[in-house]
């Protein structure tokens, strides 16, 4: 209770100080959740109010008088007081008394008849309010719990990171390998083409040389066959043929 007074006095006192000092001092003097009296969570409302007898006199009065005068004490006190007020005419009976009596009787009759119904209705309204607030709170708690679930799932997923990276690494290694082999093949093909070219070149040269030489030899031979040699060779051939035909005839 006194801390509430302190809380109210502190800002008024601090307003007189210059602002930066006030701010720094305020941080030191404002009691955060370090004192015993903590405002949150609020304690729940008491179920029933203080007891009141006959709707007018608190029960504490009866308890106060009970040790000395017993149960009838307060009633005797009330009766005596009433008689004193009436006899000394401190309470004057006039037209207002009659009016008050009528009004009070009507009020008391109304309360006795409809009191419980009104109380039940008010309780229902309160119930609904509290239920709505509770529903909101439970909703919020449920949402937060699902959020926690999702968070835990995400954390579990994070553990699988290493597998993901291994797969990626494998993929990349395979790509590199493929690329390397393709390039190797290209190199091989290029080199083979160049060597084939050289081989073909040599073959061509060889072939050309041979052809040329054959032609040249043929030409020279043909040139060297003189007409006399031609006649001689023809005669020899005829003789040979005759000999052959003779041998052939003999053989047959």
């Amino acid at each position: 209770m006194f801390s509430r007074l302190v809380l109210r006095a502190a800002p008024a006192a601090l307003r007189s100080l210059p602002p930066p000092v006030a701010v720094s001092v305020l941080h030191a003097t404002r009691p955060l959740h370090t004192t015993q009296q903590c405002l949150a969570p609020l304690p729940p409302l008491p179920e029933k109010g203080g007891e009141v007898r006959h709707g007018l006199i608190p029960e504490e009065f009866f308890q106060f008088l009970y040790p000395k005068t017993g149960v009838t004490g307060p009633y005797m006190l009330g009766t005596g007081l009433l008689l004193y007020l009436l006899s000394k005419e401190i309470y004057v009976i006039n037209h207002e008394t009659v009016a008050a009596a009528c009004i009070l009787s009507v009020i008391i009759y109304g309360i006795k008849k409809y009191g419980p119904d009104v109380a039940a209705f008010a309780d229902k309204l309160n119930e609904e309010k509290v239920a709505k607030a509770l529903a909101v709170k439970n909703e919020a708690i449920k949402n937060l719990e699902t959020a926690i679930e999702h968070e835990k799932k995400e954390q579990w997923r994070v553990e699988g990171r290493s597998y993901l990276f291994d797969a990626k690494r494998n993929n990349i290694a395979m790509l590199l390998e493929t690329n390397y082999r393709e390039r190797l093949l290209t190199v091989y093909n290029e080199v083979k083409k160049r060597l084939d070219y050289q081989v073909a070149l040599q073959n061509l040269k060889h072939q050309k040389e041979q052809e040329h030489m054959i032609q040249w030899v043929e030409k020279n031979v043909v040139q060297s066959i003189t007409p006399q040699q031609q006649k001689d060779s023809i005669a020899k051939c005829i003789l040979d043929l005759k000999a052959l035909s003779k041998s052939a005839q003999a053989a047959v």
Partner: protein
Amino acid sequence: MKLMDVKLGQLPTWLAMRDFTPGGILGALRRGYDRYYNKYINVKKGGLGGISMVLAGYVVVSYIWSYSHLKHDRHRKYH
């Protein structure tokens, strides 16, 4: 110390101890109001006594304030 714990002989001393500045009086009124409010009205199932005591107090106070007019309606002059 609370009024209920003061013995009758110590009453003047206790009265002297009280804070009669306007701020103190306001504080006392505020405390009294808070006590009454939290005991009889700020509960889950409030009863009739909460407001009926306030109304009865109002009736009594207004009777006291208008007593000087009502004195003339007395049936007897001497009691």
